[in-house]
């Protein structure tokens, strides 16, 4: 009973943070709710272990990222295309600052799941490459190469909207 109370208190305390992280990882409001639900159900199962940890958030985050990647893999194995909610907004007008967040977020949404996860963990959760590797269950070198690919894709996207269709450049 005490475990259950502690678990519920932990969920209430961290609910907003987990929901926000899930939203960034999935790039989808509906998918984020599913991801949080699955993550916390799994955290409930492992709670006797998690509750003794110095950093339970790191473990729950790892559950969330693993759930995200496995869901993506299952969808791919079924030959389905995992789709995020469409970005709320397209490219900005020429007069707008190219790198405002309303442009950048759709580009982040368009990244493959694993690349987006690395970007979110690095720039939102402020994790080190080592911590990201642990959350993703991969090597640090893989995190480096995935981050490199993601940043390359984002820069390519930014360049594309900086050179609108029909431009001579």
């Amino acid at each position: 009973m005490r475990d259950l109370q502690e678990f519920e208190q932990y969920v209430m305390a961290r609910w907003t943070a987990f929901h926000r992280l899930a939203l960034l990882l999935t790039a989808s409001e509906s998918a984020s709710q599913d991801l949080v639900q699955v993550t916390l159900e799994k955290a409930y199962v492992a709670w006797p272990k998690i509750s003794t940890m110095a950093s339970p958030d790191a473990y729950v985050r790892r559950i969330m990222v693993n759930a995200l990647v496995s869901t993506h893999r299952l969808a791919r194995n079924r030959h389905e295309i995992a789709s995020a909610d469409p970005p709320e907004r397209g490219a900005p007008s020429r007069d707008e600052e190219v790198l405002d967040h309303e442009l950048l977020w759709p580009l982040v949404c368009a990244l493959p799941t694993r690349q987006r996860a690395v970007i979110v963990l690095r720039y939102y959760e402020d994790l080190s490459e080592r911590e990201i590797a642990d959350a993703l269950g991969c090597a640090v070198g893989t995190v480096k190469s995935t981050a490199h690919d993601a940043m390359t894709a984002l820069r390519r996207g930014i360049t594309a909207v900086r050179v609108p269709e029909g431009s001579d450049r």
Partner: protein
Amino acid sequence: MSLDQHLPETLRRTAEEHSAPFPDLPSIVEGGRRRKRRRDLRRVSVVAACIAVVAAVPFVVRPFVTDSTAPTDQLDLPRRVEDLPAGAVPAIPYCPGDRTIRGAGDPIEAACDILIHRGSTTLFLDRHGVNVLKDGQLTLLDSRDWSSWLPALSHDGRWAAWVTGAGPGKAVLLGFDLKTGEQVAEEPWPTPEGFVQGIDDLGRVYFQDYAREDMLMHDLRTGDTLDVTGMPEHAGRSKYVTNDGFAVYVDGVGVVRGSVTADGQFTQQHVVDYEWGTQFSPDRSLVSYERDGRFVVGAPSGDAPVVPLKLPTEGSPVWFPVWEGPETVLVQFDPFSAPRPLGNGLDVPARRTWLLRCEVTEGSCEVALAPGWGDRAAWIVHR
């Protein structure tokens, strides 16, 4: 502003613009209970399948389901690393802090870098490449960068392998028989996206492919490469390599260990209780691993009670224990880091860390090297 500077702000604003719905706690708890029931049922079914296999084959495979670790609060743990007695310097190659490496014959002039020790072999990784330390000499095995994770050694130190090369069509698997000193593999490899999880006693290299989420096996003796098949449903990433196969995490079940047949079948599956940082002793009679935030040593079968290593309560290991010999492990320990789950390595200046030796029958520890040994290395030295 650069992209690096824009991203944190963009992600923060996006996250904060969305309000979280009110949590449905009863639904989460009920979902968790359903998962727990399913997990328990799967464990029972895997154990039952294992027992059936045991009955059918002439050797014993027993599930490792003991829970015999002494509770931490009943252990007589030292508080500070300074409380530990002084012991001998490491019996395996080490950095004494004077830009040499000792313990491999005559001192070798080299700045401290990464040392990977298994069995009777030590690899030394520095900016020049992958070297083997022997008879007072550094012998360069290959100067190319390893692609995404460190080179692997078999438990007895005979075999070494890693993947080099980045980009499609450029990856190559390198393999060495360190008993003869011969390079035995330079195979074009499907992908650099992954890493060599380890090498079993039969010289079979296991490569975790991240792109396909599959395991590839390359036999250094025959030169054959196979996909490992017959993995459990919902199998995730591999966790470590054993004497004749590997262990893999299975969602809802836990860690499942299995043998791999010559044709690549993952067989003799059974649930085990060890996962994080599992390292086998040189003769594979013992295994060290992390349980509930503490390193323990036990028998791979799980038959005997496990022995917790009595590391100081103030500070944290920076990496998993490295077997120094049949009855002792070395632990690189940082007194300035808070104790934490040991899944993460800590990248702290090696110079400020201690190298501790723990014997594995009682778990008691002593100092092998006091701070100052790590030269300028700002990373984990003993892997």
